[in-house]
């Protein structure tokens, strides 16, 4: 099957030159660093703004995947980079990016050049700047979508790229967009987020949220703008960014996010200040997004040439396949089509990791079955957005060969885990082994399906890169006198019913935590009413019974 080029944004000469010059600039910065013309203190913010961290074992490079969209050509390059410069694998992250854990500083300019050749980069994937703009991983495909949010994400991406005023913010800034009533992008937990909505006249516009966040002090975002007209969105965002840049705290890194400022000012005052700034910006008109530009960018994301007259039935192909369809296949806008989730969560695997060989096979699947396109989800999975229903059995068979065919999307073994103390310089505890032990404990597929939707999210430190605050069951690894302990939180949600998980109590050891989770799950199974997910039962009965069950020392 020859390479298929999906409908997505394509660089023109300006974009290409921009990335090429940025790469050349970083190459010079690396040379200056190696020669000592830059100290580490001076070099650090520069390398962070090119996505390069120094971690526990080595450097780590975070490559941007704008709104989670990858073409097969790009996927092959990502595999090539893993092979040539790293140790043969990569990690898909909770912000839809991909990370490499073992690049050498001296190789990074070449890696960036290779990325640039397929219209990719690592710009602003770290540092106190606007980060990768993430989007609903079902964008452009989901049956419930009002409008594809990715054109907006692309417009925001360009506007935020090396924005001269906002590259030294008080702290990092994360933006997410969604175009559907069901929130698959965790909007409520972002510094700023946009939901595409329809007004009374039936016209679409942007509901802008501000001040959500994870970390030490989680917050649910609040509404900054109920209905921002499309042409105004950049002016509106610039206003919010300016208020934040001017007033965000600079004295304490744990109090520097916009969520803190929003909470300190109160949303009413925040709105007032942003409105004033917005009105000033609009006077000059320079940030207006004309309809032609909206149309021009939207055209890049046109739906693929769907086949018509296809059967809307999913073929029979055995019990295992049927289970996989139940969890991993989602409704598509187009009759005859479906969205297929590739969970990178086979019990025992490192969540979100894929080898270079697996990436190459996935690129083949993309070309053969999904018009050359895949999405990265913030749940550390991959999504084939446009597959014909009749191809699902063949896709499933290929995924089985890859060992990525577990029928567990959204189930208890579809765990999100940050890299944790196994990789990360900031971590206090390991998270991957905990994810593995829980997944293996609940490996039995019938049991998983009986339990139903249960999102476990694990973070190895308070920075919450595993999004544990948004887990139905959240687990936070802490270091208590040199021993890893794991605290449970229950009842978090990153969907449109967003909530922050409630901390249960003292932590469990590495050897106890999976059993504690099991006791919690068993109590749910005993207590639930028909149709209730774990989250629903928790919300109905509260923490107390779960706490009793978790700390019970005898086997349930």
């Amino acid at each position, binding site marked *: 099957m020859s390479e298929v080029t999906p409908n997505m944004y394509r660089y023109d000469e300006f974009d290409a030159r921009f990335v090429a010059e940025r790469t050349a600039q970083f190459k010079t910065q690396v040379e200056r660093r190696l020669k000592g013309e830059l100290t580490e203190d001076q070099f650090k913010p520069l390398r962070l703004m090119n996505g390069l961290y120094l971690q526990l074992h080595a450097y780590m490079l975070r490559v941007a995947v704008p709104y989670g969209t990858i073409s097969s050509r790009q996927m092959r390059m990502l595999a090539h980079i893993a092979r040539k410069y790293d140790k043969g694998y990569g990690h898909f992250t909770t912000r839809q990016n991909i990370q490499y854990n073992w690049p050498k500083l001296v190789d990074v300019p070449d890696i960036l050049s290779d990325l640039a050749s397929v219209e990719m980069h690592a710009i602003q994937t770290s540092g106190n700047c606007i980060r990768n703009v993430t989007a609903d991983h079902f964008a452009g495909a989901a049956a419930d979508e009002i409008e594809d949010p990715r054109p907006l994400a692309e417009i925001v991406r360009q506007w935020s790229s090396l924005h001269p005023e906002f590259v*030294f913010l*008080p702290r990092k800034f994360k933006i997410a967009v969604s175009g559907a009533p069901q929130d698959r992008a965790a909007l409520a937990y972002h510094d700023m987020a946009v939901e595409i909505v329809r007004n009374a006249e039936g016209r679409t516009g942007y509901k802008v949220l501000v001040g959500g966040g994870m970390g030490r002090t989680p917050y649910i975002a609040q509404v900054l703008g109920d209905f921002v007209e499309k042409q105004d969105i950049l002016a509106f965002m610039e206003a919010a960014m300016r208020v934040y840049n001017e007033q965000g705290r600079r004295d304490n890194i744990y109090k520097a996010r916009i969520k803190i400022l929003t909470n300190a000012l109160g949303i009413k005052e925040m709105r007032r200040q942003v409105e004033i700034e917005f009105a000033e910006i609009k006077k000059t008109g*320079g940030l207006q997004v004309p309809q032609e530009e909206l149309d021009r960018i939207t055209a890049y994301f046109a739906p693929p040439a769907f086949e018509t007259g296809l059967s809307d039935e999913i073929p029979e192909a055995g019990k295992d396949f049927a289970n996989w369809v139940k969890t991993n296949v989602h409704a598509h806008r187009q009759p005859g089509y479906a969205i297929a989730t590739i969970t990178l969560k086979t019990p025992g695997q490192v969540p979100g990791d894929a080898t270079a060989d697996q990436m190459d096979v996935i690129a083949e699947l993309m070309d053969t079955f999904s018009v050359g396109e895949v999405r990265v989800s913030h749940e550390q999975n991959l999504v084939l957005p446009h597959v014909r229903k009749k191809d699902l059995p063949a896709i499933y068979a290929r995924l089985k060969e890859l060992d990525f065919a577990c029928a567990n999307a959204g189930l208890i073994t579809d765990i999100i885990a940050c890299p944790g103390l196994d990789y990360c310089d900031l971590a206090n505890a390991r998270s991957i082994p905990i994810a593995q032990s829980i997944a293996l404990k609940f490996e039995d597929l019938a049991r998983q399906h009986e339990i139903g939707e249960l999102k476990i999210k694990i973070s190895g430190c308070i920075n919450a890169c595993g999004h544990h605050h948004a887990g139905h069951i959240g687990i936070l690894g802490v270091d208590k006198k040199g021993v890893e302990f794991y605290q449970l939180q229950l009842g978090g949600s990153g969907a449109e019913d967003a909530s922050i998980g409630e901390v249960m109590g003292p932590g469990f050891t590495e050897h106890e935590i999976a059993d504690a989770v099991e006791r919690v799950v068993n109590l749910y199974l005993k207590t639930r009413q028909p149709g209730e997910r774990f989250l629903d039962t928790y919300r109905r009965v509260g923490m107390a019974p779960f706490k009793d069950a978790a700390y019970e020392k005898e086997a349930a």
Partner: protein
Amino acid sequence: MTKLIKSGAYAQDNFVPVADDAALPDGAVLVSLARFQKDRDALLARNTPIGVKLASDQNPQVLADDLSRLSLVALEFPKFRDGRAFSWARILRTRLGFTGEIRAVGDFLFDQVNYQHRVGFDAWEVSDHFTVEMFHKALNEMTDVYQPSADGKKTIRELRAAK
């Protein structure tokens, strides 16, 4: 020792910095915001150039009514990570319409000079090892920009439309 870069070359710094409690010498002076607010009338009556230095937490809006009488606003970067002055320069240059010198002082990186230039800085107080060649290099590393700023540089979107 520091040098001043202005209009792409080393320049003479004609402004004498004056401590808050020191007497004002003749000629062009650079004072803190507190000093300016305290001795505003006296300063304005002198008919010699006045410069005001703002700390990173001081919004230039407070000078709005007096900007036409100022020749220089110096914006401090106490630490290069403190990026507030990028916003201060931006509104000073465009919204408040300041036509005088906006000078970057303090701790900033070579790699920030281009951003500073874009948001309206036109003078830089730099250490000895920061050469004019480096300055020009900083401004020329990136040909195009995606977003409008105080420099009025055409954005990529405008360049696309012109093709």
